[in-house]
Every structure is written in C-alpha cells, then in structure tokens.
C-alpha cells in the first residue's frame, strides 16, 4: 500500500508536471503569427514559426493568420460619372501586417472582412463615380483598380492590414440595361444585314448593267464592221462593173436594156398594145424590111 500511495503521489505530480509543461509550450505554425497576452496585456509577438515558451496559465496565445487573405465582395451597383449604372463585383487580397493593431482594432478575420468590405464598397463608389463607363470598362480599368487599392489600403492601415490588391472581377450592366444593349446589338446587326443585302443587289445590278452595256457595244461594233464590209463589197462591185462596162457604154446601155426588158416584161401579167410599125415588126408587112418612116419618128 505504501508503495501504492507513493506511486499515486508520483503519478499525480507527473500529471501536474505534464500539464504545466504542456501549457508552457506553444507552437507557431508556418502560416501564422502569435500574440502572447499576459493577463490581457500583450507582451510579445512571435513571427518565427516553431516551438515557443510562455508562462503557464497566465499567458494566453492569440494566433493571427499571416497569409494573403481573401475578401470576396458582393456585387454592388455603382453609378459612373456619365450616369450609367454598373454592377461591380470586386475582390481584394490583403495581409495582416500588424498583429497587435489588428487584434486591438478588429480582432478576427471575419470582423476584418466586414469592415474591409464596407471600405472597399465606399472606395469603389468614390473612384468609379468619377470615371465614365468607358473608362471603367475599357480604358482605365487597371489604373482605377490601383486607386481603389490605395484608398482602401490607407484606411485599412488603422486595422493593421495591408491591402495587396483590389481587382474588379466583373463590371457589367444591370439586367434592365443589358436588355437595352441587346436591343441595340440586334438593331445594329439588322442594319448590317440590310447593308449587306443592299450591297449585294447593288453589285449585282452593276454587273448586269456592265454586261448589258458590253453586249450592246459588241453588237454595235459588229454591225458597224459588218456594214463597212458590205459597203466594201458594194464598192468593189461598182468598180468591177465600171471597169467592165466602161469599155463600151453604148453597148452596155443596149445590153443592159435588153436584160431589163427581159426580166421586167417577161411575166404573163404584162399586156402590150403594140403598133405593127415598130422596129420589131419591120418585116411584118414588108419582106424587104426597110424601116418605116413613122416608126423612126
């Protein structure tokens, strides 16, 4: 029993020693800072990770995250300087750089988030409110984001916080404005389509007109050449005739007259009233065939 009692005491002492030992040690993890508070009074800040000592029971340790922390802001409506409304959804990344100040002013990350969120919204309204929508969307986005960051950073310094970055995740038009944009896009496309069709029929007409013109010119050209050629033919004929008939115009007149009589008077619809004293009938009454005086007349 004696041994038992001694053993019991020993065991109790060992347990107490273990508890005291355990409570005088604390570990600081790689991602954290530790703030040692002695009876409500901050005594030191441990920045190096590892095993550390404190007074048991009297000191308590407060851990503060030293990583880059998230701040996801809910979408907020902002009115740009040209009175256009924008739904802006921004986020920030921040770091606690003064654990003591942080602990004293806001205490927890959740509380810090809600404070920062307020600051961020105010800064967004302020900065974006001075810019036009075009600047926010197209021209100056990164510069505006940098200005928001600066402003939030300045104000958040009071909480022991450094704002690493502020970025606009989305900057979109509100739903009802989007509808208007859609309508405008539609009408623009419609205009474009109409323009294309008009261009198409214009070009088609041009092509047809040119073709028609070409056709007219081609035919006229051909006709002109053809007429010239016919003229040449006729001229040639005249030349040939002149050359041939010019040898004896008198005979030609006679010969050609004969031909003309034959082709002109040949048909049966010709009816002649003749006097028998014409030269043809020279021998009609007189086999001697002297030409009559009357006929000669």
């Amino acid at each position, binding site marked *: 029993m004696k041994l038992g009692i001694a053993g019991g005491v020993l065991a109790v002492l060992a347990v107490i020693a273990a508890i005291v030992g355990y409570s005088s040690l604390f570990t600081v993890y790689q991602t954290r800072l530790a703030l040692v508070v002695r009876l409500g009074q901050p005594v030191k800040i441990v920045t190096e990770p590892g095993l550390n000592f404190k007074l048991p029971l009297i000191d308590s340790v407060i851990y503060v995250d030293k990583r880059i922390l998230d701040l996801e802001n809910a979408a907020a409506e902002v009115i740009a300087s040209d009175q256009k409304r924008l739904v802006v959804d921004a986020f920030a990344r921040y770091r606690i750089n003064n654990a003591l100040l942080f602990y004293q002013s806001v205490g927890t990350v959740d509380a810090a988030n809600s404070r920062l969120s307020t600051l961020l919204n105010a800064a967004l309204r302020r900065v974006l409110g001075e810019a036009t929508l075009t600047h926010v969307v197209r021209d100056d986005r990164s510069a505006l984001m940098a200005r928001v960051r600066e402003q939030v950073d300045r104000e958040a310094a009071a909480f022991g916080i450094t704002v690493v970055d502020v970025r606009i995740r989305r900057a979109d038009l509100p739903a009802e404005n989007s509808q208007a944009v859609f309508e405008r896009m539609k009408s623009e496309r419609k205009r474009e389509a109409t323009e294309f069709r008009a261009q198409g029929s214009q070009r088609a007409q041009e092509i047809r007109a040119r073709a028609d013109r070409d056709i007219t010119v081609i035919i006229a050209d051909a006709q002109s050449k053809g007429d010239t050629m016919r003229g040449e033919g006729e001229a040639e004929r005249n030349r040939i005739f002149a050359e041939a008939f010019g040898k004896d115009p008198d005979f030609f007149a006679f010969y050609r007259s004969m031909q003309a009589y034959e082709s002109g008077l040949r048909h049966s619809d010709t009816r002649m*009233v003749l006097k028998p004293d014409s030269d043809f009938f020279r021998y009609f009454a007189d086999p001697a065939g002297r030409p009559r005086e009357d006929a000669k007349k």
Partner: protein
Amino acid sequence: MPWSNQGGGPWGSGGSKGPWGQGPQSSGPTPPDLEELLRRSQDKLKSVLPGGNLGGRGVLLIVVAALLVWGFSGFFKVEPDELGAVLRFGKYTRDAQPGLNYHLPYPIETVLTPKVTRVNRIDIGMRLIEDPRRTSQQIRDIPEESLMLTGDENIVDIDVSVFWQVKVGGAKDYLFNIQNPEGTVKAVAESAMREVVGRSDIQPILTGARQSIETSVHELMQKVLDTYQAGVQVTQVQMQKVDPPAQVIESFREVQAARADLVRLQNEAETYANQKVPEAKGQASKILQDAEAYKSQTVAEATGQASRFGKVYEEYKKAPQVTRQRIYLETMERVFGGTDKIILDSGSSTQGGNNSGVVPILPLNEMVRRPATGGTQ
C-alpha cells in the same frame, strides 16, 4: 474568446478553405486529441498501479511498446504527383520526395503533401457535369459568369477554361503564403478575362482575336498571381466558346445570311453576265460573218456579171451590127413570147400616120382587170 475554438488541430477552423483542410486528400495523419491521450494514459496508470500484478517490468514493456508505436507513426508516403513538406513544431523545415519517408512523430513534426504535378482546371462561364448514366460530359452554362461587356459596350458570351498547377519550387508559397489558392486563381482569371475583353471591341473578339486574348489573359493572370506570390503557374488559358449572347445570336446569324446573300446575288449577276456576253459575242461574230458573206457574194456576182458582159462584148466587137440585132431580136422574142399582145394597125401606110381621126375603142379597164381575175383561175 472567439479563437478559443481553434485548439482542435493546428489549422482546425481557419483551414477549412485551405488546400489541406478538407476532403479525402487531406494529408498527414490526423493527430489524436492531446487531452484525450493524457486522460487515456492516466486511466491506464490507474488501472495498472493499484493491482501491481505486472510489476515494474510490465510497466516498462507497455512504455516501450507505446514508444515504438509512437515512433513508427512517423512513417509516411508521398505519392508520385505529390511533394511532402515537413513542419517541425509548425515551422517548415524540409521537403520530402515521392516514396516512403519518415518524420519525427507527432507532435514534433507533421507533414503536408500537396499535389504539385497535377494540372488543375477552372472553368468560367460553364461547369462540366459528369453524367453517370452516360460517359459524356454535359455543359451547364452560367450566364452571370460568361456574359461580359466589351469595350464598345456590347455583350459577348465567353466560356473559358484555365489550367494551372503548383509552380516548380513554389510549393512553399502555395502552401503558406495564400489563404485560398484555388479561389484566388478563379477570381484572378475572371477579372483578367473581363479586363482583356473590356479593352477590345466585339467584332475582333468574335472573329479573329481568340489567340491574342488567350495570350493576354494568360500573361495578366500570371503577373497578378506572381505579385501575390501564390506559387501558382498558369499553364494554359483556353477559350471554349465565344459567341454573341443567346438573346441576339439570331441577329448575328441573320448577318451571316445577309453576307451569303450578297455573294449569291453577285454570283447570280455574274452568271447572267457570263451567259449573255458570250452570246452577244457569238451574235457579233454572226453579223460579221454575214457581212463577209454578203461582200464575197456581191463581189463574186459582180465579177460574174462583168465577166459575162466581157465575153458577150468580145463577141459583139467582132460583128457589132449583127450581134446587136440578134440580141435585140432574141430578147424581143422572149419578151413578146410570154405576154398578151394587142396589135393596132394604124391604117394604110400611104395615108401617112394615124392621123386618120379614127380611134378604136379599147376597153382597157376590162382588159387589165381580166388577167387579174384570170390570174387566180
């Protein structure tokens, strides 16, 4: 106190968003609660000591066994796609390569094994839904993410996938420098995408600028993530879909159709031209040929006639009087042979002429009319 509940594990409550805080991949052995351990050992002591049956040797045996078990708990495995980071009392001390490794047992050392070689994918504007019934994946569109405002105040619908992994040598940053790497990558991706799209007009985005947008987003994301020292490498930015919004896509198709109409109208006109112009050329050629033929014919005829006359003339020259008479008579013969004739004798030739005063009545009208009617008989 608000942080009094942080005593559970080293990253207990704060780590729910952390890379090792959740899910089945959480690395390292879950440490048993210390107080629980203490209480258990006290119970053991109590149960052993009063009996005292086992004696000092027994106690020693138990202690040695416990020490052995404790010591062996330091073995851990690092998978091929992982990298081990060993922490001694919370301080990062060394890396552990894939394979079997040892760290001093808890609570002295712990280990984290992030998957450093795995390429992670983040989708913006859509989610892939695994359908267990089919092997295919379905895509669910998320318009509030995918609709973006362009520089000329149009709206465009873009889905994009970002692939990223832990940077080589950046595991420490990835683990210890940033609270929520995955969420940060996504937020930065969205922000970069909109910033780049916001700088451009809608037309180049829809048509050709895909490649350059991907490059710009990639560069911008990497730059931002590097300023966070997030230990993240963006490996690829892939635009999955670039369309006009569903509300107006019909109008864009209409423009395409109009463009096609333009080409069609043009082609039709060209078809017309290509048909009609050669036809006209053919016609022109016919006109020319006809003229040529006429010319040749005319010349040939003239030559023929001239030559005929020439022949006749040659004969005529030999005996002009006779030939002339002959031709005259022959012609008259042929002429009179085919016609109706009325021969009026002018009376006695001695009385001289037709001045006798007697004029015979000829019903010329009837005579002319007769052959006309007779012609039809």
